[in-house]
């Protein structure tokens, strides 16, 4: 069938994207793969070391500490943040809640604030002389008025700051999904005697499953890319005893503070492989029983 387009038209149309992709994505990715197999030293010197960077990575205690911290943060984000987002979405999906639109805007608004500002704000709050200690000491006089949250509760502080930023953001996805849940199906289940929990389990969850699995994946990827929040909150470091060191922070420290671009590239590829693994597992899990 003749579409009316010259044969080469599609190539011309995709050429700008392919050019930009090749120059700014494919080439840097390939180059970083090459660099990951090089020992770089300063601005010019490099030597091919094949897989030595990856070998070192496997026995690098800081890398594994960063992976562990990142996992804890991701678990905290997914297991606390997403149920909260879903709960809020369900609440604000109830027609009887007055001012729903205002509440949606209020809960979503932290997502409009830059991460660096959020980190600075929570830094001031969790500071020894900050609002958290001031409030807790005011409420409970026995509470240590200068409790060092950012020394003793590093990961918790990061998770709380991240919750504030993203609960409302993920709520919007769930809200959109909930609005597409068939009311007929829900009412039919109610007529059949299904209680609220049974309707939630058997009607709502299956209906929002594709969106939920997308949000889980998005949150996991976002959590594994955690950098600015921790970097600013912990004063340009991994915090006391590296309790807040994340994989991306470790990559940054190696690449741009130690100026070891080869090793930083190896860390980047390790992170990419981890994320791909997650995406595959998540895809498998989310499709179990789909058919």
């Amino acid at each position, binding site marked *: 069938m003749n579409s009316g*387009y010259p044969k080469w038209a599609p190539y011309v149309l995709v050429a700008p994207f392919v050019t930009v992709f090749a120059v700014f994505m494919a080439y840097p990715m390939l180059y970083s793969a090459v660099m990951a197999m090089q*020992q770089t*030293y300063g*601005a010019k010197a490099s030597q091919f070391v094949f897989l030595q960077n990856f070998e070192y990575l496997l026995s690098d205690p800081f890398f594994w500490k960063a992976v562990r911290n990142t996992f804890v943060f991701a678990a905290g984000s997914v297991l606390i943040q997403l149920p909260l987002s879903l709960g809020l979405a369900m609440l604000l999906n109830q027609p009887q809640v007055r001012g729903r639109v205002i509440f949606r805007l209020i809960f979503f608004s932290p997502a409009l604030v830059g991460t660096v500002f959020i980190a600075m704000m929570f830094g001031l709050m969790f500071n020894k002389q900050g609002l958290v200690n001031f409030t807790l000491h005011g409420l409970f006089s026995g509470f240590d008025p200068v409790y060092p949250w950012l020394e003793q509760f590093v990961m918790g502080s990061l998770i709380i700051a991240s919750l504030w930023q993203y609960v409302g953001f993920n709520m919007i996805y769930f809200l959109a999904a909930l609005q597409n849940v068939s009311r007929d199906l829900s009412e039919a289940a109610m007529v059949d005697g299904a209680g609220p929990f049974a309707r939630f389990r058997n009607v709502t969850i299956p209906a929002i499953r594709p969106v939920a699995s997308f949000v889980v994946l998005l949150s996991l990827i976002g959590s594994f890319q955690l950098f600015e929040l921790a970097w600013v909150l912990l004063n340009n470091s991994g915090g006391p005893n590296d309790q807040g060191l994340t994989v991306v922070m470790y990559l940054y420290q190696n690449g741009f*503070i*130690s100026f070891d671009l080869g090793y930083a590239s190896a860390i980047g590829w390790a992170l990419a492989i981890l994320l791909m693994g997650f995406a595959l597992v998540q895809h498998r899990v989310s499709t179990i029983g789909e058919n």
Partner: protein
Amino acid sequence: MSRLFRLIFLFVPRESLSVGGWIIVGLALSSSIAVLSWPIPQREGLEFWLFSKGHAELYQVKTDQWNAQRDPDVHISLLSNESLQQRMLASFLSDTPAADVIEVERNFVPQAFTGPIKDVGFIDLTDRLKEEGIYDQLNGPSFAPWTSRGRIFGLPHDVHPMMLAYRADLFEAAGIDLTQVQTWDEFAEAVRPLVGDRNGDGITDYVISMWTGGGFRDQLEALLLQAGGALFDEAERMQINTELNARVLATLASWMVGPDRIAVDAPEFDPQGNQMRLDGRVLVALMPDWLGGVWEMDMPALSGKIKLMPLPAWEPGGRRTSVWGGTMLGIPKTTEDFDSAWTFAKHLYLSEELAEGLYRKHYIISPVKAFWDRSFYDEPVEFFGGQPVGRLYIDLAPQVPLRTSSPFNTYAKDRVANALYLLKEYANENQKYKPEELMDEAHRLLKSSEDLVTRQVERNVFLRSEP
């Protein structure tokens, strides 16, 4: 433009795309042409990058003088420290032009010195400095941070000796004469009576601003240097797990925990730290010359209440100062006019007028020894209770310790700062509060830090082959 479209229609039939499609093609083409034909301004004269607004304001006067009298013109660009660092390193990586003259802060220089000496992106100034006699005119230790493997890559801006700043009003009210204190042990004894709830808010107030963590890495390094410790020697050989370093760590940990605690977390450049200083909840701080100007600007209410004294020594008769911070002027290899850049660098940094300006505005003393007898350094400073601040710092300048420029110093500093945090936690958990009780653990933690840094150094195939 219409010709262009006619040309396009020769190859692509008009009806191939919808009206919207053609509008998008038109916009894409016209914006591409606009971008491509946008004139790129040609660089004229010398480009000078720096990170400090205060410095830029002072340098502008000297630069205007230069531009009025000499060629080529110099253009100052003020960048944030991080932005300057990224642009500078990107230029060194890619050999693309950076500025002709760059003022760099000490914490960002080791990255530029990473790699074989021939690959350092700055021009080696060693021979020129010696031939022109500048090396002998300037304070010797000021060259140390800009020296790598015996070669000097920058003209030093400062000396940055350190003193102890204390709330003279409150110490006098308490009847404590801190100036009689000679050592840190005597200092801890002398100030201990002031620990307590001084303002009646139910919170214990301590004395000296010193803690673990990122905000105190430089202070920790300064105290290690003062003790004669440090993390690398002059030949950039690692020396982390030493008796002196362990002693400094054990003493600092003993200040932070237990019944004899005197230290508190009141970081510099921090609004809450400053509020603590204003409220008298912290009374003593380590103060390099440049910090005086910052305090005066940020906390004018402290005027007349602060005084300076030499740092207490780590042992009787020991060194009474240290060093914190520093800046250099470097000339990248990509400059097309080295001679003008070098002449401008000297015009700026060796100028007496600038030395006076730097002192009057920031209390920074010049590394040019010939200026040290100038009368402006003897003038009383109101903020510091009428003390001749410049003279006090100059008297200590010859004692300023040497510093390393090892590219591994930042990493080593982080590891040692972490060792201090762990030692403080250990002291707390085991209720060991005396420095002598903490020495074994301090050594163990320093050994662990040293092993980590060694591992990092030994991974480098280039360093394995370097002598």
